């Protein structure tokens, strides 16, 4: 069964002048279709302004479609009574770690979601413990979030969502404000959730290195889905990606350039290991 179904989604931002007259309409999402299976790791790529964050907000019923429909776990996001069940089954992690941590202590923040859901006190503690352990932040549970690094804060945010026992986690550029080591930390935690706990992950990002392990990749530009497929299929089309102002991983780029200058390599090489293997074959 599909955990998320997006059908002909259109979203328009309407700009108004001071009197409230419509000045202009920006179409942020333009007829997007998307099907995401339970347990998948899906990445949505796009440069700034491609509509990927707007899309993410639809999956959590923070924004509603102008046209088309979004179903999360079989529920239409436009029905008001579905709001809480949808937000419960599709948790969301945002870009800025400082602006989404509510508690003054790590464990209190992780407990915020379950508290809102009306979970019993004893179970809240169990959930907090298991979520913090899942992201490797259990030993920081008594710390103030202000004393953590960016990557650690983001892992706390993920734990906060996990504690609500979602079927699916949407991460809206969770690594955009982090340094390289923080990025790795967060991506490792997210992959573990997907592989070990079987939670569906939708990762919105513009870092190519983060999507090579995804099951499926969507590439967005100007509100449309321009490409979709496995990472291999996507990264085989280096020139098209470049025309969408996206860079490819360095290894892929190297392989691409080598191929162009006559080395017999296959398309869509994603890791250094792979390139080494293929180069060995060539000799």
């Amino acid at each position, binding site marked *: 069964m599909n955990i998320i179904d997006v059908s002909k989604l259109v979203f328009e931002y309407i700009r108004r002048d001071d009197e409230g007259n419509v000045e202009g309409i920006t179409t942020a999402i333009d007829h997007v279709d998307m099907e995401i299976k339970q347990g998948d790791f899906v990445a949505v790529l796009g440069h700034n302004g491609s509509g990927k964050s707007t899309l993410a*907000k639809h999956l*959590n019923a*923070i924004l509603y479609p102008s046209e088309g429909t979004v179903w999360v776990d079989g529920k239409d996001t436009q029905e008001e009574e579905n709001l*809480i069940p949808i*937000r*419960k089954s599709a*948790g*969301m992690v*945002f870009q*800025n770690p*400082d*602006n*989404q*941590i*509510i*508690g*003054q*202590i790590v*464990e*209190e923040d992780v*407990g*915020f*979601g*379950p*508290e*809102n*859901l*009306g*979970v*019993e*006190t004893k179970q*809240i*503690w169990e959930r*907090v413990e298991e979520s913090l352990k899942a992201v490797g932040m259990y030993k920081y549970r*008594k*710390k*103030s979030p*202000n004393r953590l690094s960016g990557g650690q804060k983001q892992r706390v945010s993920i734990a*906060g*969502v996990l504690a*609500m026992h979602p079927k699916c986690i949407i991460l809206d550029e969770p690594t955009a404000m982090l340094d390289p080591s923080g990025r790795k930390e967060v991506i490792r935690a997210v992959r573990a959730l997907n592989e070990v706990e079987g939670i569906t992950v939708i990762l919105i990002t513009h870092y190519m290195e983060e999507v090579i392990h995804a099951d499926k990749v969507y590439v967005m530009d100007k509100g449309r889905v321009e490409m979709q497929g496995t990472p291999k299929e996507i990264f085989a089309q280096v020139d098209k990606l470049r025309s969408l102002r996206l860079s490819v991983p360095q290894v892929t780029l190297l392989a691409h350039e080598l191929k162009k200058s006559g080395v017999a390599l296959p398309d869509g090489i994603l890791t250094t290991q792979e390139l080494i293997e293929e180069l060995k074959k060539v000799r």
Partner: protein
Amino acid sequence: MIREITFGQYYQTDSALHRLNPRVKLVGTMIYIISLFLFKEAAPFALALVFLAAIIKLSHVPFKYMIRGLKAVIVLLLITAVFNMFLTRGEALVSFWGLTITKEGVIAAVFIALRLIFLIIGSSVMTLTTTPNQLTDGLEKLMGPLKVIKVPIHEISMMMSIALRFIPILLEETDKIMKAQMARGADFDSGNMIKKIKAMVPLLVPLFVSAFRRANDLAMAMEARCYQGGEGRTKMKPLKYGKSDVLAYVVLAVYLAGVIVLGKWL
């Protein structure tokens, strides 16, 4: 300089005071403040000092940490003391330029300064040993009866806890904006008062803009985590009175009685 303000911040350690029910601490702070303003004699103040010293010792928070909080209000303290010194009528000690310092004035100034210092340290002990969440939980519980007359207690306490959480973040941001502007030649330190205040405007505008942006983000994050007001919410750390809380109430009652006895009959 900005980071030195400790008022309203939590100091993480483990102590009997940290474990106390926040309601006890709130009531205790209130009783302590009232006790400071009940009498003007030296004896109750001595008791208040002893009590405060004992509390500080119990809290395991370094004393230096609390004193830092005083720096922020030192100007206010001086102004209050000076005004008291000059404006209280009584036996003249010295007079110059048509102003007179009176004996009563000096005494009043000392008392008011002591009161303020005790008050600030006393209440910062509470905020240093209580997480904002506990604090607002405590307030919510204490003011619970007001819900009957439709006072939005839960919302008020939520706003307070969020405000407290963002104090250090916004302070850090102010520091950052200040440095960024100083790097481009902004001058915050020279000139007279009016000039200094005018120099703050380019600091406040970006600060407000960013605060609103943060507020917007935070509201979204809270909604995404199913926040829908106080109704149907459970507590991760429900407040329950324990033995030590009862003991603390007894200690408070003894203290208050002691102050009253000392003030009335000595």
